[in-house]
């Protein structure tokens, strides 16, 4: 095992996959000479050169659709969008083109493309540099949506995403970029579509993803001191999400909290809560509680009050413990 930061785990995943398959290339703004806005491609330009580490003009729509065209002609692009907020400039590319190409063209084309982007607060960067928009993409048939909570996960999931034949929206989190964790020296993959029980417990299930997994683990620590045993389920993949693992956990704990950094309304937590209500409502002993940011644009000066964390998860767990049906 070795210790590595999240951002370098991303780099290792890309590097290993580029070594393995010459059709894999990276494209985006400042990914080449500059080594990536957050440093994810540091050293890759020197190693692979400008043909495979492709600096682009500032043109998210253009280079994302270009990657789609390249993917349908046999290449395997990794697209880097500097901040998730900027993905709004390429919604046609992702929603109308990439997500639909395979199905719409009668399975003639496959579009093996990974679109990486960091979401979330943490830099006090304000309303247009802090959003969590994963639910938008999870709502579009044809895309897979992956979120990684730590260095081990980000490497294994990204490698799988690059090998996947389908388009994958790969969501990182800016506050996690510097996170350290330990990973094996040898190669490993983490399957897409499988959740991971990050902590076992018996009283309440907390389902979350990305940074909120780590916050939920902190909350679980705090709550264990109060005699409450929390099971933390990391979805890892938002679409398609792992019903089996989530439902199995709820069948054990009979209580559910869903937690994400995105605004609470219409977030992915709403889908999970609805699916649980549709399919296993009788397993629940208490109302489902949701944790998410308030329904306003991300705050610059009040960011630490805006972004949900361990305290919010703890409160939600206590609320569901108090309200037995």
């Amino acid at each position, binding site marked *: 095992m070795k210790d590595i930061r999240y951002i370098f785990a991303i780099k290792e995943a890309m590097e290993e996959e580029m070594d393995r398959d010459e059709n894999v290339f990276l494209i985006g703004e400042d990914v080449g000479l500059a080594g990536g806005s957050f440093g994810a491609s540091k050293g890759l330009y020197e190693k692979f050169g400008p043909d495979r580490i492709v600096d682009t003009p500032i043109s998210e729509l253009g280079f994302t659709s270009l*990657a789609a065209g390249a993917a349908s002609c046999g290449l395997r692009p990794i697209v880097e969008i500097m901040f998730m907020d900027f993905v709004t400039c390429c919604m046609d590319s992702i929603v109308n083109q990439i997500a639909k190409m395979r199905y719409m063209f009668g399975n003639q084309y496959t579009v093996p493309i990974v679109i990486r982007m960091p979401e979330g607060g943490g830099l006090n960067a304000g309303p247009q540099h802090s959003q969590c928009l994963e639910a938008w993409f999870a709502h579009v048939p044809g895309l897979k949506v992956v979120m990684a909570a730590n260095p081990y996960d980000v490497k294994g999931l990204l490698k799988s995403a690059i090998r996947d034949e389908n388009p994958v929206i790969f969501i990182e989190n800016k506050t996690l970029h510097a996170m350290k964790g330990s990973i094996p020296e040898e190669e490993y993959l983490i399957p897409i579509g499988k959740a991971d029980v990050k902590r076992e417990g018996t009283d309440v299930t907390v389902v979350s993803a990305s940074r909120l997994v780590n916050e939920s683990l902190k909350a679980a620590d705090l709550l264990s001191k109060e005699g409450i045993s929390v099971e933390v389920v990391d979805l890892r993949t938002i679409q398609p999400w792992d019903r089996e693992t989530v439902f199995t956990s709820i069948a054990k704990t009979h209580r559910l909290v869903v937690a994400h950094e995105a605004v609470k309304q219409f977030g992915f937590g709403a889908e999970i809560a609805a699916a649980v209500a549709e399919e296993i409502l009788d397993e629940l002993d208490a109302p489902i509680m949701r944790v998410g940011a308030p329904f306003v644009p991300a705050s610059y000066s009040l960011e630490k009050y805006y972004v949900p964390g361990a305290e919010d998860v703890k409160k939600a767990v206590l609320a569901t413990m108090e309200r037995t049906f």
Partner: protein
Amino acid sequence: MGKPSKEKMIEMYRAMVKIRKTEQKLMEVFSNGEILGFLHVSIGQEAAPVGICSHLTEADYIATTHRGHGHAIAKGIDLKMAMAELFGKKAGYCLGRSGSMHLADKSRGIMGANGIVGAGIPIATGAAFAAKYKKTDQVAVATFGEGATGEGAFHEALNFAAIKKLPIVYLCENNGWAEFSPMSIHAPVQSVTKRALAYDIPAVSVANDVLEIYEEAGKAVERARKGEGPTLIEVRSERWYGHYVGDAQKYRGKENVAQAMAKDCLLNFEKGLLESKVLKKQDIEKINTDLDAEIEEAVRFARECPYPEVSEMMEGLYL
């Protein structure tokens, strides 16, 4: 490059007639209600797709538009499977899922028509990127209307292609209308060639004349194949009918329509072929009756094929 050979000219004539007749047939079956949704025909514009595709092989790529039947036919699409798609049948290229605005044939490099104006331009540019990446000699073509040049996708793609010297030809069919608006309403320039200046891409404007287009397209494709980068060709083409079938063109004077129809690229080519004795009257009749039969056969096939099963709707989303 210059003039095409006699055989090539006959092939080109045949392709133009095939496009014209296929779309005339489509208008008929659309009016019967046998085809659903929207139908955009390119009657009057046949010269451009044939002029460019005459220089392409099956391995070359083309991404087209909502008005894309002509390009697909010129690139060699199988008419039966294309017709089945238009009829929404399972035997169609897209398994009947998508219809006219999404005709695609991977085996012939047809990367799809597109329901989103301008969207095919960066996608074709991506195909050119892939060709360069893999060091093949393939060329990509993006076709689009003058209306699409207001989209960011157009500008972003040209900028990138110029920087990277990608093997692509941008073929703009300037028919003067974007839906119900003339170009004067949506562009400060009346020739799209001026837009290419900003990207230092060589650009040329040609009349709706298949031989002129053939010549310029030949140079552009050769330039692309030699790795010299993108070219933009504007064809001053003519839209005879409405934006879609059923559009009565109330916004457009009868005179404007008559002028467009007078510049009939197919008829002019036919006259030239007769005058230069490349074809005789009987040859032309034979080509026409053969194509009538081929198109009739494609329609019969499409009519008889089954629709996809509702139970199949959920198939194929992911691989």
